């Protein structure tokens, strides 16, 4: 089963800190793969916050085809952090070519577009590249978004980290999501590896979502660019978070009201009962029904953790406000390894009604219960 570890920090840190935490949790996963989401990038990327970064894996032919496609669309490469391993890959990892993160300058004609239109176009370009790559097998694209890098590979996380030299300074980031284990239920597919990403929102999950098929059908019928793929039953969590925040305009503490609404008894005395019962009714198709711990990161750099109602996958949040670093872990040993210098009595394990949120300032864990009044006034 997947192991999850997320870090959010005021200063950029090496993703190795998260990888090491995954390694400590190795008893629970089979070392079959790793996925990384990095945002709030440090190093050379600090100056490039506005430039969308394309993250993926390319063969030489794929790189050429990608450049050609980007040029055709008026995009110019501004900065790139590419890495082509020169050693033999670890056991089980195929030799793929170049692991690239390339920042592009947006064409002038995009300047007149609304933000929504531009965002949608970025998603569409990622999907186009993905489709081009699926036809030839030479391009794999995980994200195309400002201040965001994603890396996915098959193999043991620590071995992959060594192979891809993930301790490079150009990969230092403030917000890191890391997941260990490939999609072992079905055939190996890098797109099935968490974290999943859409328009600045990224989430990862352990467990299994039994309501996957109806939710997938519902999301796909919403007409939103980017609601596709679904190689994994967990991808829907990312899209629900996107749908709830971007399409419905809710804040992240309401995410839990969408995926695991309260039952009638719990809702009876709630000050926002009327709205919540309406929301439950309308979003009934998005109710998840499987043991899951969901950890995610939002475009503003806030990180959150939520559980399903059954809460068979207990996660933990803890950190040090002085150092400005917080960890979200599926196992407490991972948190101990990554942030030993913290007050463990302040660790928070969200229960089935809770969402834990750590803002970009990394000062405190905000504990939202579904029984609290809504933070957002409608």
């Amino acid at each position, binding site marked *: 089963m997947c192991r999850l570890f997320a870090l959010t920090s005021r200063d950029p840190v090496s993703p190795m800190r998260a990888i090491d935490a995954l390694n400590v949790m190795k008893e629970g996963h089979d070392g079959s793969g790793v996925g990384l989401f990095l945002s709030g990038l440090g190093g050379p990327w600090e100056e490039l916050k506005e430039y969308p970064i394309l993250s993926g894996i390319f063969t030489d032919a794929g790189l050429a085809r990608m450049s050609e496609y980007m040029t055709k669309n008026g995009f110019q490469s501004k900065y790139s952090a590419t890495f082509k391993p020169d050693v033999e890959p670890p056991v089980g990892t195929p030799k793929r070519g170049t692991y690239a993160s390339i920042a592009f300058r947006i064409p002038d004609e995009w300047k007149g577009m609304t933000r929504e239109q531009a965002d949608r176009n970025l998603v569409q370009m990622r999907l186009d590249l993905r489709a081009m790559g699926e036809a030839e097998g030479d391009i794999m694209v995980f994200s195309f978004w400002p201040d965001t890098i994603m890396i996915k590979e098959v193999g043991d996380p620590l071995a992959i980290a060594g192979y891809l030299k993930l301790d490079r300074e150009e990969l230092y980031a403030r917000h890191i999501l890391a997941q260990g284990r490939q999609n072992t239920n079905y055939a190996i597919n890098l797109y099935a590896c968490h974290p999943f990403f859409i328009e600045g929102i990224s989430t990862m999950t352990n467990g299994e979502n039994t*309501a*996957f*098929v109806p939710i997938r059908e*519902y999301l796909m*019928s919403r007409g939103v660019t980017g609601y596709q793929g679904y190689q994994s039953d967990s991808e829907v969590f990312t899209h629900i978070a996107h749908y709830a925040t971007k399409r419905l305009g809710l804040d992240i503490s309401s995410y839990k009201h969408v995926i695991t609404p309260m039952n009638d008894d719990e809702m009876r005395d709630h000050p926002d009962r009327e709205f919540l019962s309406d*929301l439950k009714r309308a*979003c009934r198709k998005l109710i998840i*029904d*499987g043991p899951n711990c969901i950890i995610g990161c939002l475009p503003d750099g806030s990180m959150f953790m939520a559980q399903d109602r059954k809460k*068979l996958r207990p996660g933990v949040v803890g950190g040090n406000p002085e150092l400005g670093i917080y960890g979200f872990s599926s196992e407490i040993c991972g948190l101990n390894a990554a942030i030993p210098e913290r007050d463990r009595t302040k660790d928070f394990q969200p229960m089935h009604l809770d969402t834990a949120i750590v803002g970009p300032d990394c000062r405190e864990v905000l504990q939202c219960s579904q029984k609290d009044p809504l933070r957002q006034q409608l």
Partner: protein
Amino acid sequence: MLAERPITPATLSRKDLPWQIKWDINTCTKCGRCTSVCPVNAIELGVFRKRDVKPPMGLSAKPTTEFSTFYGIRQRTDPAYACIGCAMCNMVCPNNAIEPSRQYDSTTLQFQNNRGGQPRTRGGRRNNSESLLDQIKFIRISMLTDPALDAGRHEFDVRTLLGRVLSPEAEIKCFRENGWKPPVREIYPLVIGGMSFGALSPNMWEGLQMGVAYLNEEMNMPVRICTGEGGCPPRLLRSRFLKYVILQIASGYFGWDEIIHAIPEMKEDPCAIEIKYGQGAKPGDGGLLMWYKVNKLIAAIRGVPSGVSLPSPPTHQTKYSIEEAVAKMIQSMSMAWGFRVPVYPKISASSTSLAVLNNLVRNPYAAGLAIDGEDGGTGAAYNVSMNHMGHPIASNLRDCYKALCVAGAQNEIPLIAGGGIGKHGNLAANAAALIMLGASMVQIGKYVMQAGAGCLGSEKDRCNVCNIGVCPKGITSQDPRVYRRLDPEKVAERVVDFYLSFDTELRKVIAPLGRSTSLPVGMSDALGISDKDAADRLDIKYVI
């Protein structure tokens, strides 16, 4: 046989009858109960004369002949009185001296039971024992990553929504702007389908209503019952129990006057209004209440003379086209209750179901669509209608659900599936399969009669005389001498019993799938079937 007995083309021997009476002369006490209880007069008291030849000893004396008379039971061979195998004779016999037995190689009666130019009309069942729903298996059993749940102890939310559900965007907009929201009811997903007050006996109806009220008020299960066409007793309309009732209006508008007049005095809104355009077992035919069952009470409620057959016309002048009807009738019914009551149409499953659905998707007042498959029961229909008309429910429902998926309106228009659910007693499995194929809820009729009141009818053409008012159990008779056999209290008890066992069984199906917090509507990845063509058609897994 008498020497002078005429043998005509329609003459049958006992051997030709599918149901034969086995009568034991040695244990019979000749009490006569069997002949008096037989609903179709298939047996009668008989006087038999027997000749006995007695050869004396010796060679000179001639043999003598003696005649004796004895009394017993005779089965009539006239096709009009053929035994229907209900076994009421056995039920009343103190010594089990009599019982019908099925003779499967006797098929000749079916050529003779249409008489006087009239094809056979019967109530009940399709005489087809196949059931696709029974072949479906639930294959997605959670094992490790997603542990199966404990069906007995876990928290389950077995509820569904009846009514137009707004999309999340529209719902939030509506909340912000304080706009009008279509009424939605949260109910139990197993609904008792439309069986009218004319079709069922007063005792059966009362029993059902009592059972439903008990389930709601004591067992916390929001079960709903549809009245069927033919109105509703005025007292129920003015009672607080009306909220558990879905009122049906059908092509004949029978009993609608009564309902309209009661509106100002209603203490509660009904749960919903169902507009019946068709039913699965006789699509396009409308209902038929035969004159045997139209007694004074039924006639009064429906506003018709008693003792006349009441065929519901398949179309009414107000239903010029389905588009117009759907738009106009749904709106006017909604208006009648101040837009506080969900209104939805019920159609027979057919190749045009999708067209109706398309009309509904764009109608903001449409609260759902009930689809009734060919296996639905009926109080009366022609053999040919029942056996050869209509569309199976599984593929029809699936088509509709997939059409809604394409439109992005799945579960916004709830689909209510009926027809053949629990045909062989597998109620929970059949219902769960339909829910996973896309139904938001399912409706049952026959099952209620069989499980709730011990109906004797079967898919093997046993009994099935619901239409002529002689139901031996008193379920569908309007004759007080017959229906007093049925105790409404006991019916209510049985209704509660089978609902509770259904609830347990449904949890036993969905718990291993790892589902508990929402009904698994459309969870088609859980289903498998060993028929390749069916798997392709329903878009579920093919398993052998």
